[in-house]
């Protein structure tokens, strides 16, 4: 992991920034998100992928691509989380002033 982080910090930073932007937008976005049922399936898929990666089951280049995707995805989620929280904080601070 440390090797990937030092080697591809540019790509990882990009994933984090995409996450921040998405998180920032999602707080004020209207409309339906992912349904509860689909979210469960997606969570299961993520768990399977993580298990495959940790178990070193996927060989060669595909294994490398899987690892890369999971790390970028994790950073994306982290970015989303921070972005949403920041937006929420900004929004809630401006409301009492109104």
């Amino acid at each position: 992991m440390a090797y990937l982080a030092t080697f591809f910090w540019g790509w990882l930073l990009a994933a984090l920034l995409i996450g921040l932007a998405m998180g920032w937008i999602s707080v004020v976005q209207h409309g339906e998100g992912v349904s509860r049922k689909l979210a469960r399936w997606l969570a299961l898929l993520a768990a399977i992928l993580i298990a495959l990666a940790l178990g070193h089951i996927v060989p060669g280049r595909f294994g490398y691509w899987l690892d890369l995707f999971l790390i970028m995805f994790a950073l994306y989620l982290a970015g989303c989380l921070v972005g949403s929280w920041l937006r929420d904080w900004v929004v809630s601070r401006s409301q009492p002033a109104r």
Partner: protein
Amino acid sequence: MHELFKWSRKWWPGVIPLVICWGIAAWTTTATVEADLAARSNAALKDTILDKRRIAVAGRDVTFAAEAFSEEGRQSAVASVEAVPGVRLVNNETRLVPEAKPFVWSAERDVVRVTLTGSAPLPSSKGKLLEAARNTLGSVEVADQMSLARGAPPRFDSAALLLLDQIGKLKDGKITLTDTKVNLSGMARELGGREAIAAALRNLPEGYSVAANDIKAPPYIFQAYKDPVAVTLTLTGNVPDNNAHAALVAAAERKFFSEKVVDNLKASLGAPSGFANAVVPALGALSRLSTGTLVVTDREVKLSGDAFYDAAANQIRAGLGRDFPQGWQYKADISVKPAASPVDATVCQQLFTELLSKARIRFESGKADISADSVGLLDRLTETALRCPNATIEIAGHTDSDGDESANQALSERRAEAVMDYLVKAGLPPTRFQAVGYGATQPLAGNDSEEGKAQNRRIDFVVK
């Protein structure tokens, strides 16, 4: 917390640029990652001794194939590749270098090249052997057909290096090291090469031994040619060392009293044992010939030429006596010189005097045994006696004044008789001779010096 779930349901659109980003990252970085990991893995194995090393990287998985020289070496090599940062998995395809049993290494020399075959324990020792071979052999081509194997005996390198050194001393041949046993065959480059190799093999490392040494040497040749026209004895070929050289030339000068000794001998190692004991009597036989050639090749003595008379020819053909060493062969091709024309008694006396002025008949000190160095002279005296068949000859023995008078008298008589015996055995009638002893009564020179005494100890031939 509830709000977090609410927000997260709307995070999915960002996955689309994320996936695009991931695709580009995967597309552009895979080759770089693979090259980087291959370089790091190779660097990690820099100090590890392996044969047939191959590293292939797919993604972050390294396929590592190699032959190691020990189990520990194999494990540590795999561990160092596993420890390279960024490597996810190591597909371990390493194995041990095959074990050679018995461990055979050999060096073979023919006319144009030296071929190294068999097993070497490590790449470094293989390199060392090749380099040593090139240094030892100079311009000779060195062909390497060695493979690597485990199971070499301890101190293999020093043993093999020592043997390589010996290959330089061979004209052709093969040296094989089977575990700790050495086999040698072939022909030494020069005289003494066989001995030099045998001497060097004594320095083999502990535990190594010579199973068979069949190195042959070029023939060891000694030649002597007695030329009656130039009145020379020419010695050519080899002698074992400078002492033997001096002794041999001294012996030749004693035996060949009238010939000039031309010495073209050179000292070389590799003489067969008993060389001096064979060559000195053979020179004695040559001194009995009027013209002749002596060729000593290894342990074979060939003598050819003309004897002065029949009985001498038979004696020479019969052999070289008890002193001739065991294991030596003697071949004589002796004919008899045509008899010289008869002369009258006066000329005979002149001839005797002339011969005896060049050399004296020698005896063992204080005894009446004729010295082996004097047979050549006695044969010439016999030949002369044969030329005047009607003359009666007094063989007169003389001594110096040392010692008891009666003992000197007796010794001079016995010595004169010994000479007469020789002539009778040569086929002359005993009636022609009178052996007389004069003791010290007729000195030729003063008895006060060693030189004078030596002149007084003599046998004279007096034609009556």
